């Protein structure tokens, strides 16, 4: 893009532009490349990293509270973990050797 923009100013400018691109400095100017732009815009501060509600938005939305949907998803994971924990109770009880060994008995 820079090359096209400066085509009319002469060969020297074109050469400088190409040299800058070749050394990797072409995108380091104040005009960010399309690839770099989202990262730099989204992380201007050390505030909350983006979530689904802040996707593609900049500034204030990164500081917003998590959405109700995000918290509901988290709650759902914890509920499922609670169910899994409860489901293991009978197995933990069955793993108690001191309760179980009394059933073994002995030969008549």
């Amino acid at each position: 893009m820079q090359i096209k923009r400066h085509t009319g100013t002469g060969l020297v400018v074109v050469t400088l532009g190409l040299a800058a691109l070749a050394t990797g400095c072409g995108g380091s100017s104040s005009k960010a490349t399309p690839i770099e732009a989202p990262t730099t815009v989204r992380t201007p501060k050390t505030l909350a990293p983006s979530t689904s509600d802040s996707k593609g938005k900049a500034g204030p939305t990164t500081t917003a509270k998590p959405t109700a949907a995000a918290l509901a998803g988290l709650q759902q994971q914890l509920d499922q973990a609670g169910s899994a924990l409860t489901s293991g109770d009978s197995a933990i009880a069955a793993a108690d050797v001191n309760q179980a060994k009394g059933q073994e008995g002995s030969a008549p």
Partner: protein
Amino acid sequence: MTRSTRRVGTIATAVFALAIPALAAPADAATGGARLTPNAAQQCKAVALKPIVHADAVKRTSTLANLVARLGTNKDPYGLNGPQRTALQSASAGITALDAQIAGTCYPSAAALKSDAQKLFVDYRVYWLRGPQTGAIRAADALAGARARLGQAAAKAAPLVGTNAKAQADLAAMNRALATADAKLGTPPSAGSTIAAAAGLQPAVDMTNDTAVLEAAHSDLLAAKAALAAARAAGLAVISDLKG
């Protein structure tokens, strides 16, 4: 029904009871079966104990089948279910064979029968070992499922806490509790040391070591469950922090 009719019926029953074994004996002999003729049975000792031994065998094979069925419904994050299922099925086959052997053997003494019957208990340890061992494996499987959910929840919470100091602290507590659980439970596919040791136990005459290992595994399972419950509580606190 008159008294004389009942008496005739009783006599007929007695005649049949005597006649049927007499008729059956030649058939058994022809097939080479281990059934005993009435004369031989009179020389065999402790015959009355055989039904008791048989009942013990049936009870154990039924218990083993139940343990296998329960294992079948579990996920197997540590790879312990397959070997355990094989061990349980092998024990069941062994008990069935031993039961048949005892039933078909004419023991010269009660002590000889008891010696064989003792194998039913000592060689298999269905209740002392296989029950709690299978319970430990199933419990570890269930707790691993809970651990996986909580790990996913912690990962989901991490980008949400932002600069909320209380949420950060609660999330850190959640992760510490998960680490505590991991130390006891292990991380799939590797089970924790006591759980793996319990899963590898074999029946023994002296069950002192088996009991100690099973106790250690049970203790670690309880500790892992407590840690996971604490992690879940911390996760719920994170949600509360973020809503506040």
